[in-house]
């Protein structure tokens, strides 16, 4: 990321190497002072929208978490009494039923996220590596692999829920009727199996994104590195370890964090897969907060849970960035 300079006001960036070669270093022309306002004017629409839809609601959300904002106050929130941290105490009290459910949902989400990100990355790197070198049909396969990511979430997940139906779905048809692996048709969308169903669907949706990013990253690996490794007699795994993965490190750093955050916050997959309500085994945190907020119309405690979730994600992200940056400095 380019660093912002402390130059007063604005001036066009002249450090770009492309500019230097295209037009041999023109003398710095004095700028008319009104120009200095221009970049800010250009940013006004974006900033106003970001403030209105992201920043202000976030501040309001924190404020809401400090109010007794139950169903009696939702149509006119100015009447909701201020209760300090009571909502946090109530929702994060892990001895109560609600607190235990939240904690359970948190663990489910964490395990789900780690497995989903790991699998999506594995499939992504496998796909990117096998498509690294040109062969007949490569373009078609690349397009095919990207399709799950391009599909609207809900059509992809609805299709999966059809595959996973107990009596009419493909999965049970193959496992029970065709392969005879199981005697009885299991339910995939309720009970313990629902977690694994959710995981598979999530990986199916997200691995193409990893594939896309890793493929883009591989384009930047110079062929000479592989040739040098091949001359040294390096086999496939050795080349992967000593050339491919180190060269992909910058991509991986960002990709893993983005996948983690997206998967952890995933609402769409469970919401569509289970038709609006998730079984306890697949009760991801977003859907947990959503359901408890709109079931009880207690937006105060819903906001408290959301803010706690945000704080957790901020701590994790900051820790991740700190650790990876430090490693890079020592490398």
């Amino acid at each position, binding site marked *: 990321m380019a660093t912002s300079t402390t130059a007063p006001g*604005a001036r066009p960036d002249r450090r770009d190497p492309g500019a230097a070669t295209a037009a041999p270093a023109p003398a710095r022309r004095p700028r008319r002072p009104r120009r200095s306002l221009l970049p800010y004017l250009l*940013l006004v629409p974006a900033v106003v929208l970001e403030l209105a839809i992201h920043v202000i609601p976030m501040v309001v959300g924190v404020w809401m978490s400090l109010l007794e904002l139950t169903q009696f106050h939702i149509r006119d929130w100015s009447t909701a009494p201020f209760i300090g941290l009571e909502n946090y105490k109530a929702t994060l009290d892990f001895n109560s039923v609600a607190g235990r459910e939240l904690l359970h949902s948190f663990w489910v989400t964490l395990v789900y996220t780690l497995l989903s990100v790991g699998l999506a990355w594995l499939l992504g790197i496998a796909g990117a590596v*096998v498509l690294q070198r040109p062969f007949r049909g490569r373009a078609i396969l690349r397009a*095919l692999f990207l399709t799950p990511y391009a599909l609207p979430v809900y059509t992809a997940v609805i*299709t999966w829920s059809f595959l996973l139906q107990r009596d009419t779905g493909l999965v049970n048809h193959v496992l029970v009727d065709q392969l005879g692996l199981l005697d009885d048709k299991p339910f995939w969308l309720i009970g313990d199996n629902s977690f694994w169903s959710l995981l598979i669907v999530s990986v199916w949706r997200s691995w193409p994104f990893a594939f896309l990013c890793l493929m883009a990253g591989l384009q930047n690996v110079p062929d000479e590195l592989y040739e040098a490794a091949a001359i040294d007699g390096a086999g496939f795994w050795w080349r992967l370890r000593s050339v491919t993965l180190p060269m992909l490190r910058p991509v991986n750093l960002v990709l893993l964090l983005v996948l983690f955050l997206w998967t952890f916050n995933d*609402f769409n997959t469970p919401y569509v897969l289970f038709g609006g309500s998730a079984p306890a085994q697949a009760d991801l945190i977003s859907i947990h907060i959503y359901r408890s907020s709109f079931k009880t119309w207690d937006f105060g405690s819903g906001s408290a849970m959301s803010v706690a979730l945000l704080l957790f994600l901020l701590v994790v992200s900051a820790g991740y960035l700190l650790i990876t940056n430090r490693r890079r400095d020592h490398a």
Partner: protein
Amino acid sequence: MRETAGERWGRRIVLTLLTLFVVIPLYVMVTSAAKPLQDVQNGFTWWPSRPTLQPFVDMWSTVPLARYLVNSLVVSSVAAVCSVAVAIFAAFAVSRYRFRGRGLFSVTVLSTQMFPGILFLLPLFLIYVNLGNATGIELYASRTGLVITYLTFSLPFSIWMLVGYFDSIPRGLDEAAQVDGAGPLRILFRVILPAAVPGVVAVTVYAFMTAWGEVLFASVMTDEGSRTLAVGLQGYSTQFNVYWNQIMAASLVVSVPVVAGFLALQRYFVAGLTAGAVK
């Protein structure tokens, strides 16, 4: 560099497994859309007993699909166009000027993309409802409210990708135009945008897809009149019969345009990703 036999077989196996994993659900979507109702109510079949296009006819009357489709089209198109328009100006500022707060702006905008949607949902719901009660501006359960919400969802990534494209356009072009006496906006519209057309198109498609596929806010912020496809498609399964053939037909109709758009422009998405990631 020669490929060993082991590597060749490894590659074939990986390709086969990945292809099967991706293709099977797509195959089921396409074939089931051509099945008569009894095929999807009994055990699963790999092929329609009697291929028919009837589901593509019936799907319009089982649920008000046309209304959902129009809602989704209007909301997604308006949101995409507005989002890209706003992003173009912001990306121009970030790409071509050094100013105080530039880094702060980039970081803030990108990080909102990473926050949980549920965090904004409850406050926005409350703000829209209370704003409607206080001023009569209908944002809750209206397409306007959805447009405003969705356009900010795609904004961060749109800005990021456009900055990448704009950065790749040589500044020599700007300066040549400047020598000819062109002002900043003229440079943006006459020099930079024409050179960045593929990028702008790719970003528009991305913004459209974001709005087209959004579920969380659509499930709360819409009523029967403003319902979009994301919520509307679930109507097929709340009926007495679950019309899986019609659901698959509707899913196919809803998916094909965005998938085609994405695949046609995939090259530019990759270019945008790498351009952004290099910095």
